[in-house]
């Protein structure tokens, strides 16, 4: 075992303190420092802190962020969230493993440069499939790009001497303004390079333009999105901008200073264009400049912004801008005009329901916490958004941290909490960073007042920690194992004290309700679910992104009007709402409104609002298997029905997808699902069967087909084979790209696939220019 520098461990411990509750923070520090948890470091932690060996090892093996084996210099995290899954993330993962020639039981290449692993969700669903290498996220990754991506990363790494660009204002005091979001998903789409290009262009051309970092518009399908506000105040939006386009785009709106420069710039641009046209780009980013998105498009018309107010206009850490839009007015109003009880009654009257999952009335939680035992009370903002397929909490925390902080401060005032903790997933480093900075800015500005301390606690990778009792265990430095409720956290929560746990979006809604009033809030949405809901729209849809619509908007409106429908040539089959706890709603029920109760009655649930659109190429049995595998992997393993029950359900689903289904499997699956639902201890287990039950309810015929050895959607690898039709033009692309050489190289002739060697990775089908590769059922008679 290699030696480590113990003084680094000591420094981490000194920074975190020695209390038992700091175990996860300390281990995170060690993991970041050494890229794994060296035994010597853990021994040192055992010596110097109150953490016991049992606690440290239990925690280290519970959270997926930690690893006990040394990792390569860079970690390649392939997102296998729902949207990435349906867009072929598993194949991308396999491609990385093949490219790096990894053994079956190894995740690190021989040079110890890269470690390849799967990650639950990077929250970049509309850029699926997404891959994070080091701190860089790449979107729309294809199998063929894998090698190029690693080279690109290493090249960028080599030049990383240049520090990150500053976050706030850039450029001269303004003639006009150029706005760009650099949240995690926009960065994944290439916003960083666009930002640098804009900086360079403004400087080189001496443009009288301000470069402004803004909160995300949620228009992820067009990211990076550059908004140009001319001197007259009229705004133009450019979607999917590439760094190369930036200068030309800016010159369309702004004049360089001085006639000489104007003329030379024009000439140079003309020359550049001539040269460029000879080059073919195969960059990871899509090219399409000049899409002008008008504010009146259906994408915007159907939305109502409460938590996303100021999207695309306001800098995420621009406190003055937030205040100029009325920020912190709500907090001030509460403190000056209302007693804490009045604030609680206001929230109760608003009918605000928790946006994180079950939809429990927020006001009642507040009331319960406020009426619990006197003394220290805590407030926790649940930002452990673990559902694969949702990313609203990330976007809200990254783009509107002040709004969440204001919501926290109001809740703290109402329930009498002295300490507020943001629990944010470590997979969201930018959110963590911005919330920390925003808290500091609020403290410096004296906005939080006496007696309220806010801090961030980072999650270490465990979906179950979205469950509130597990979340509290994690903050206490324990394994995130849920416990039975009651007692509820509002009576006995963090460190045994009354604790209010609310989701990010719930808290971000609070300031609006205080300022605009209960009536305005109830005027939006439905009587049972007032207000708006952010939805993370991803999957097989044209315009994926984050939207905010009034509750009660129908699925059809969201998918077809706002999202622009499914990709051409396919038909809309179903939406998966609510991630692993939710269910699939078929296209024929698309007219049901999206609100807590309607979704529940269809066997789904709101969850946090991830909405993954599926089309006719998606297999519903496979989708159910995917979610069960996720729940099984993320189960804490405590109670029998969840630990073993979900495993036995998964056994059946795996059998079905492998073509080994037996008669009786469907009935067994259904019965077992019922027991897991009824018998599990916490929300994870109780809702884990939902994806199975809802697909059984609406797509039972697909299950029956699998029992008979057929996959109607042509997705389940064991039930299909690839073939090349007479349309083949003999171009050899498929043979060149096949990773396992299953297609002999026969130029100008029809190609043939060796079925025994074929791994069904779909590459040939994707690269074929003549659409000659087709999927056939393995068994005859489909």
């Amino acid at each position, binding site marked *: 075992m290699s030696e480590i520098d113990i003084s680094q461990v000591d420094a981490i411990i000194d920074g975190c303190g020695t209390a038992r509750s700091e175990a996860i923070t300390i281990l995170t520090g060690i993991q970041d420092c050494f890229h794994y948890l060296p*035994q010597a470091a*853990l021994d040192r932690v055992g010596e110097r802190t109150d953490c*016991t*060996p*049992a*606690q*440290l*090892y*239990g925690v280290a*093996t*519970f959270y997926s962020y930690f690893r006990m084996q040394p990792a390569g210099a860079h970690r390649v995290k392939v997102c296998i969230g729902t949207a990435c899954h349906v867009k072929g993330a598993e194949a991308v993962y396999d491609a990385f493993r093949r490219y790096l020639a990894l053994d079956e039981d190894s995740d690190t290449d021989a040079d110890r440069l890269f470690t390849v692993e799967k990650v639950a969700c990077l929250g970049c669903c509309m850029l699926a499939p997404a891959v994070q290498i080091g701190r860089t996220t790449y979107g729309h990754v294809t199998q063929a790009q894998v090698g190029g991506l690693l080279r690109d990363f290493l090249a960028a790494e080599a030049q990383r001497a240049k520090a990150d660009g500053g976050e706030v204002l850039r450029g001269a005091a303004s003639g006009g303004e150029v706005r760009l979001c650099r949240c995690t998903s926009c960065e994944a789409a290439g916003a960083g390079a666009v930002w640098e290009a804009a900086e360079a262009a403004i400087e080189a051309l001496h443009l009288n333009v301000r470069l402004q970092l803004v909160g995300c518009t949620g228009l992820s399908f067009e990211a990076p999105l550059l908004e140009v506000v001319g001197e007259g105040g009229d705004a133009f939006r450019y979607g999917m901008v590439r760094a190369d386009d930036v200068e030309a785009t800016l010159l369309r709106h702004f004049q360089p200073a001085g006639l000489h420069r104007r003329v030379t710039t024009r000439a140079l641009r003309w020359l550049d264009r001539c040269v460029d046209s000879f080059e073919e780009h195969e960059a990871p980013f899509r090219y399409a400049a000049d899409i002008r998105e008008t504010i009146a498009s259906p994408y915007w018309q159907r939305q109502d912004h409460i938590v996303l107010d100021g999207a695309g206009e306001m800098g995420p850490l621009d406190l003055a801008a937030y205040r100029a839009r009325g920020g912190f007015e709500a907090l001030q109003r509460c403190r000056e005009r209302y007693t804490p009880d009045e604030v609680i009654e206001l929230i109760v009257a608003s009918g605000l329901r928790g946006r994180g999952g079950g939809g429990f009335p927020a006001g009642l939680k507040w009331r319960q916490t406020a009426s619990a035992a006197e003394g220290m009370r805590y407030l926790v903002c649940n930002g452990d958004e673990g559902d694969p397929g949702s990313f609203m909490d990330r976007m809200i925390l990254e783009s509107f941290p002040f709004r969440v902080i204001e919501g926290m401060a109001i809740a703290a005032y109402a329930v009498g909490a002295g300490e507020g903790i943001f629990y944010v997933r470590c997979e969201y480093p930018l959110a963590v960073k911005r919330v920390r900075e925003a808290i500091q800015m609020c403290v410096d500005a004296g906005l939080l007042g006496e007696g309220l301390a806010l801090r961030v606690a980072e999650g270490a990778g*465990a979906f179950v920690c979205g469950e509130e009792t597990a979340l509290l265990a994690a903050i206490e430095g324990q*394994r995130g*194992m849920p*416990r*039975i409720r*009651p*007692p509820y956290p509002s009576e006995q929560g963090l460190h045994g004290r009354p604790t209010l746990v609310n989701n990010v979006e719930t808290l971000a809604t609070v300031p609006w309700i205080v300022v605009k009033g209960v009536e305005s809030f109830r005027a939006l949405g439905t009587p049972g679910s007032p207000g708006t809901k952010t939805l993370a729209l991803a999957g097989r849809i044209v315009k994926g992104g984050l939207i905010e619509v009034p509750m009660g908007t129908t699925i059809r409106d969201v998918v077809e009007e706002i999202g622009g429908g499914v990709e051409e040539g396919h038909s809309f089959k179903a939406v998966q709402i609510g991630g692993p706890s939710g269910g699939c709603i078929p296209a024929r029920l698309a007219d049901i409104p999206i609100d807590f109760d309607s979704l529940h009655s269809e066997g789904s649930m709101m969850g946090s609002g991830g909405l993954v659109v599926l089309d006719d190429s998606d297999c519903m049995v496979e989708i159910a298997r995917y979610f069960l595998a996720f729940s*099984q*992997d*993320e*189960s*804490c*393993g*405590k*109670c*029998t*029905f969840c*630990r*073993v*029950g*979900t*495993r*036995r359900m998964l*056994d059946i689903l795996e059998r079905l997808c492998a073509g080994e289904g037996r008669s009786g499997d469907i009935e067994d699956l259904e019965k*077992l699902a019922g*027991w897991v639902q*009824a*018998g599990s*201890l916490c929300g994870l287990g109780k809702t884990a069967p939902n994806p199975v039950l809802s697909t059984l309810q609406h797509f039972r015929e697909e299950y029956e087909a699998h029992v008979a050895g057929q996959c109607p959607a042509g997705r389940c690898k064991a039930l299909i084979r690839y073939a090349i039709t007479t349309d083949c033009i003999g171009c050899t692309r498929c043979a060149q790209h096949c990773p396992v050489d299953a297609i002999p190289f026969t130029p100008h002739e029809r190609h043939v696939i060796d079925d025994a060697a074929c791994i069904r990775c779909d590459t040939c089908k994707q690269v074929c220019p003549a659409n000659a590769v087709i999927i056939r059922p393995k068994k005859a008679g489909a």
Partner: protein
Amino acid sequence: MSELHISLSVDGRAVSIAAGCTVLDAARELGIDIPTLCFLKGSAPFTSCMVCMVADDVTGKLLPACSSLAQEGMQIVTTTDHVREARQRALELLLSEHVGDCEGPCRCVCPVKMDIPRLLRAVGRGDWPEARGIVDQAQPHCVLEQDCKAPCERVCRRNQIDTHVSIRAVVRAVAAMDVEGDAALAVAPFERNVSVIGKLQDGEKAALMNDASTAAPVKSADPGGALSPDEARQEAARCMHCDCRKAHDCALRSCAEAYEASQRHYGTRGRHPFEQIAQHADILYEPGKCIRCGICIRIAEREAEPLGLTFIGRGFDLRIGVPFEQSLADGLRTVARACAEACPTGALCVRPEIQHPGKVSR
């Protein structure tokens, strides 16, 4: 909270109990039995096994009795078909991941169900009265001389390592000896075999050899093939102790019997491999029989073991082990026996040598 009392009913009988008590407390107050596996008296409930399921007729919901707080107006039922089936399903799920036999295969196939593993152990220690007692109890129905075809030897798991134990020869040696059988000996009746290991995978074979002599089969010096007492002892010591060390005081097995839980209901595909950890002088640990109730972890923590035990991993791969994969001997320095005795299954059990101090032969 001063003297606050909660009124509820269990199986139709009213009971009043202090606030903060559980449904299990209320039922026990009335003398109503609810089975538990993961519950440890004097420690906060953990709520993992779900065998203590009851239902509240008011809500229709199933609740784990050990940790559900008694609430005003609850109408708890503990004997309905629904409750019974919930317990049965929980047990069947636990059995579906259970690796390890209750009874040895030799006893299962013996027409008279002679407790062969126990007999071999008694012979191995040289405890002739006990050995004779076991043979005598089976003797009335047993036709040792002519008709015994020794099916036990065919199924003996030692065949998978080298050659079976010569069981019939050992039994005959015991029968031929001039020794009084232990009249007070109680041989547990054969119960349904709940759990079966099946064919051992390569990696699993060594695990069963912890308690067995590695010697080759004993060659009898007698031309007729009869074993001398010493030879019988050597041969008997080759028994691998496939039967569970807690075959007759296993809470999981007795619950499974009571609720007619079948191991086959959910199949046994995808179990963890058989494993036996013999790092500790006093106890053996078979993780395949563990139900992850954490009772041993709680005992070690309560008694301030310096290293103790912990949960490792999560999901279906959750297991209990010593921190940093250190030796079980280091993990449990003072409370090993207490843990083994409290373990509701045969996962942790006291080693036979310890159960029979002074009679150790090897």
